[in-house]
């Protein structure tokens, strides 16, 4: 698939700039576009249980966001260092940016040093194939730096909100550079509704790196992917296998869950797995472990959008996104939700 095929028009007034709770609404007070083989339906997020069936399994990411954005001093002046993926406490893949609204790549040389408070951070080498990312080596662990000086990663279209804004009902294990946001509208009330409908919930862990990668290569499949730490437990792999054996559907809550489950898939079903994955779920790759996806609305030419085409095909994605623009659905982490079910949504 050509990079250009993942472009689409979307007016900037469809960027969700603040979370609904700052307007006195509930987190679940967002809209839900449902796309299945019969077309599109417009609903509210609280309607989610009625599109699922008893015996379906929702899989959620239990990683919680950390304040991964650090102000740093450099040869180029004051910059931001957004940490993305932890290799060790003192070694991360990180994205140096001019500011939250102004990305890089910044013209650093390998070996250059940054100062973060009293800590020194060396930019070792750029990440192969992704020049805006670097291996960043601290002279100490980054953990206290986050705790003392970190802010949540945010971009030009929104402010930094308090850290709890970026956690979900399922956030349990700190480590994501950015919130796995698809579960954000799942409130206790929604969870009760799901459980009441006979839908079960199982967790995986995948620590997300910085934002969905913008695809820079000419063809989508050639894009270099950076790895993310993940874990699929025996309990969850058993739950997925049992759901499929019983004719239920496995619905991933977020693209991170698709990546984790597909990384644990084998022709004999799912297995417990722990490690780093840079699996790229792209249009030419068949999806085996997941039957549907609950997600947000993604930017043009990103790896997340490429994943969506693996569920819906390019025409399906174009049709859904045209529908979303026409009906004013809101984009990004505080925006509306999209339930993608390649088979019919209701029994």
């Amino acid at each position, binding site marked *: 698939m050509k990079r250009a095929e993942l472009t689409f028009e979307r007016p900037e007034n469809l960027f969700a700039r603040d979370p609904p709770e700052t307007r006195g609404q509930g987190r679940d007070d967002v809209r839900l576009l449902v796309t299945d083989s019969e077309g599109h339906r417009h609903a509210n997020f609280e309607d989610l249980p009625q599109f699922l069936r008893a015996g379906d399994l929702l899989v959620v990411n239990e990683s919680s966001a950390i304040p991964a954005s650090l102000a740093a001093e450099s040869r180029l002046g004051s910059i931001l260092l957004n940490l993305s993926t932890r290799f060790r406490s003192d070694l991360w893949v990180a994205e140096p940016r001019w500011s939250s609204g102004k990305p890089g790549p910044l013209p650093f040389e390998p070996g250059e040093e940054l100062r973060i408070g009293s800590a020194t951070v060396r930019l070792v*080498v750029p990440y192969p194939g992704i020049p805006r990312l670097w291996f960043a080596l601290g002279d100490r662990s980054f953990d206290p730096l986050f705790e003392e000086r970190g802010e949540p990663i945010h971009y030009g279209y929104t402010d930094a909100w308090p850290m709890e804004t970026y956690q979900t009902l399922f956030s349990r294990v700190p480590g994501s550079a950015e919130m796995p946001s698809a579960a954000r509208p799942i409130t206790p009330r929604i969870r009760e509704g799901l459980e009441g409908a006979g839908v079960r919930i199982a967790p995986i862990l995948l620590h997300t790196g910085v934002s969905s990668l913008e695809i820079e290569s000419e063809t989508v499949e050639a894009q270099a992917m950076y790895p993310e730490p993940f874990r699929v437990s025996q309990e969850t792999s058993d739950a997925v296998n049992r759901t499929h054996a019983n004719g239920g559907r496995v619905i991933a809550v977020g693209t991170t869950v698709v990546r984790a489950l597909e990384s644990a898939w084998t022709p004999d079903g799912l297995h417990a797995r722990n*490690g780093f994955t840079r699996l*790229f779920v792209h249009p030419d790759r068949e999806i085996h472990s997941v039957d549907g996806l609950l997600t947000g609305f993604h930017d043009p030419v990103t790896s997340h959008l490429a994943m969506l085409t693996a569920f819906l095909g390019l025409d399906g994605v174009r049709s859904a996104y045209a529908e979303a623009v026409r009906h004013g659905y809101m984009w990004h982490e505080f925006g509306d939700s999209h339930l993608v079910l390649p088979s019919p949504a209701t029994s």
Partner: protein
Amino acid sequence: MSNRSTPSQRVALITGASRGLGRVLAGFVAKQGYALILSSRGVTELRAAADELAPLAPVSAIPGDVTDEGHRRRLLEAAERWGRLDVLVNNASELGDSPLPPLNKASQQTFRRVLDVNTIAPLALVQEALPLLIRSHGLVVNISSDAAIGGYPGWGLYGASKAALDLVSKTLAAELREDGVSVVSVDPGDMRTKMHQDAYAGQDISDRPLPDVTLPFWAWLLSQDPMKVSGMRYQAQAPLWEVPP
């Protein structure tokens, strides 16, 4: 060429370090604060690599052939001087004749040389370095190849030597576990290196990635608890690097 390392500094020994994968890996670990012992047959190239790395890390560059016992002894004497050996990378490899002949035309003498360099010398280095490796709870990385399992025409000698090396790695991992020494086998995948060019003499290999494509894997591997990954065979360019349960 040699300068001082500090007692707390980790030490890596890399064979075949003057070009290709070995050189890229040497640069990456040097930038992460390791002291380096570098081995290569190419005296001039090794000198150039050492000069480039010297500003980054203590480097001891020792030219020689890994099948030569005296050369291996000099490498380990350098590690002894630094008092430790945290990572031993057996990367030096012999492809055999170029272009690669099919097995029915392969030279038995070449096969002996390929086995000597790719299988026997790595084991010899582990045997001889064992006291240092035990003291440092070291990690041995044996560089393998997809030819070890592929059965690709022309790659028989090289592939057989790497398949044997894979089994050496796995067996050593089991045998050395109680000594606290870890062993992994790593298939770096196709790369644009001199060896790959020799294997495909006269062909354009510019579609292959440069060896720095494997850096994320090395960053990951060297960040793991070595005992937890010991016995594994990894593909550096694969989408998944698994820690066994």
